[in-house]
């Protein structure tokens, strides 16, 4: 296996998978909460929340990366607190790459989940309430099973987006081989050196394969769950 990829290339692929996995997993509960709030609740500042969530989708990724550096960098407002109180450093670490990837993927995740939640008939939740289920139980026994296809689709979409995230990542955590050099950063780095194109091409093939696999998997899982839920 190792003979067709150099250790550096392997590290980039493995790091990308790890970054995307954690970015998706950690943002999942937040995504669900925000999607639910946007779909169901009316509160002051809802348009603002909606805007902030979608901002990374529209802003140049380099701007998002720069903002992350300002906020979560060692001298940043949040970064300083994390460093001094918890000893957590994000800038120029793989955890920072996961943060950047998670934030860039967040809007996609929230959109998929929000659509799923909006498709759930609130009258079913009312019915569950009259049968004795409190709000959290209604969510666990009725809402969540019904939105599961959307949650899975959102998670897989977020994973694929995290795998491909480049601009914000390279701005926030740079491009350190073995540390913060994800798949796209590695491809970029290989293209910068003469004769690096064959290496870049191999990674490009891997990137395409992973992205395709993620899409097919998400389709398949969502369809299986939808079949189970609709009772067909």
């Amino acid at each position: 296996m190792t003979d067709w990829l150099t250790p550096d290339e392997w590290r980039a692929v493995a790091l990308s998978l790890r970054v995307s996995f954690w970015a998706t997993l950690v943002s999942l509960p937040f995504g669900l909460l925000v999607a639910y709030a946007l779909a169901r609740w009316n509160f002051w500042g809802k348009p603002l929340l909606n805007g902030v969530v979608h901002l990374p989708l529209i802003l140049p990724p380099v701007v998002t990366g720069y903002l992350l550096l300002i906020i979560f960098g060692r001298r940043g407002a949040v970064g300083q607190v994390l460093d001094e109180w918890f000893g957590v450093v994000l800038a120029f670490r793989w955890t920072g790459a996961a943060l950047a990837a998670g934030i860039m993927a967040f809007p996609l995740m929230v959109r998929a989940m929000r659509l799923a939640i909006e498709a759930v008939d609130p009258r079913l939740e009312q019915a569950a309430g009259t049968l004795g289920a409190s709000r959290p139980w209604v969510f666990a026994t009725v809402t969540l099973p019904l939105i599961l296809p959307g949650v899975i689709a959102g998670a897989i979409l977020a994973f694929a987006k995290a795998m491909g995230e480049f601009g914000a990542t390279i701005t926030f955590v740079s491009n350190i081989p073995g540390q913060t050099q994800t798949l796209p950063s590695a491809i970029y780095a290989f293209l910068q050196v003469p004769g690096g194109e064959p290496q870049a091409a191999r990674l490009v093939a891997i990137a395409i394969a992973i992205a395709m696999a993620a899409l097919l998997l998400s389709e398949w899982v969502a369809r299986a769950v939808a079949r189970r839920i609709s009772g067909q």
Partner: protein
Amino acid sequence: MTLRIALKHRFEGFSLDLAFEAPAGVTALFGRSGSGKTTVINAVAGLFRPDEGRIAADGVVLLDTGAGRCLPPHRRRIGYVFQDARLFPHLTVRQNLLFGRWFAPAGPDVGPGVGLERIVALLGIAPLLDRRPATLSGGERQRVAIGRAILSNPRLLLMDEPLAALDEARKGEILPYLERLRDELGLPILYVSHSVAEVARLATTVVLMEAGRVTAIGPASTILSDPAIAPVMGLREAGAMISARVVAQEADGLTRLDTGAGPVWLPRIEAAEGATVRLRILAQDVMLATRRPEGISALNILSVTVRDIHLGEGPGALVRLSAGEATILARVTRRSVDALDLRAGRPVFAVLKAVSVARENVGRAGP
């Protein structure tokens, strides 16, 4: 079990202001669409919060805006059968039925312990248990929804036009199950309907609603045979509800009944001899004669007394007749009232064709 309801709420262009008491049995909230019936039961369920109001079921206060008390729906223990079933699509019929069981409080204060098997048998849904809601017919779904509500062990059952979305055949399929529920479980039911036929079959008490107000309340037999209320129900639907005892099943396919005002023969009624049934006799099916008619094909000729005559705005009149203990309504023309010289206290004969009492107008009598 008595349910006390007092509500006040202002909507745009509509206000609700009413108070009534629902005794045990089936209380039908009857009125046109838009009269506020569903709003009332939503308030009882806790799905709608009125500006002002107090709702108490026996000693338990569910809502008291004056005292700032409002129990959330899941703590009210009130079963709700919606017009559109609302079964959970991701669960099987069995899981749907048992949904409320996860949350129903266990303990001595819980009402009549009703087991899954009994309800399944009562509603005839045993063959459906492992199926998903998507594969059920409308009538089957509604029966499952009724079972699901009962199995959550409620103190009272709300039904919001549970038959409205079904065709006539499906209604006829479900009505006997509702009668069995009423007679065998003793669970108080608040039943919203705008169908006189359903109310006549099921209700023990009728609450008549118009534009957010209660305009009449009383025992079903009294309200349904009140000529003053007939225009609200629709004159074609006007008619009396009487109880009758099955005396004999006769060889030519007729059933002989005793109404208290003489024998009545109707097309075969599936009930044991000695059983009591409810008949709804439409006013437009009753003819009046001052002498006992002879040489007439109608089988049922009852000797009755005119109680009062209610003249409407058109050419028609509703005549209320005392037939022993029971009351019968007859819809005739004013011209006939004059020609026959009908007036209160006058003995007359009411003529009813056996075949004019439709099958869906014969039901089980309540307890």
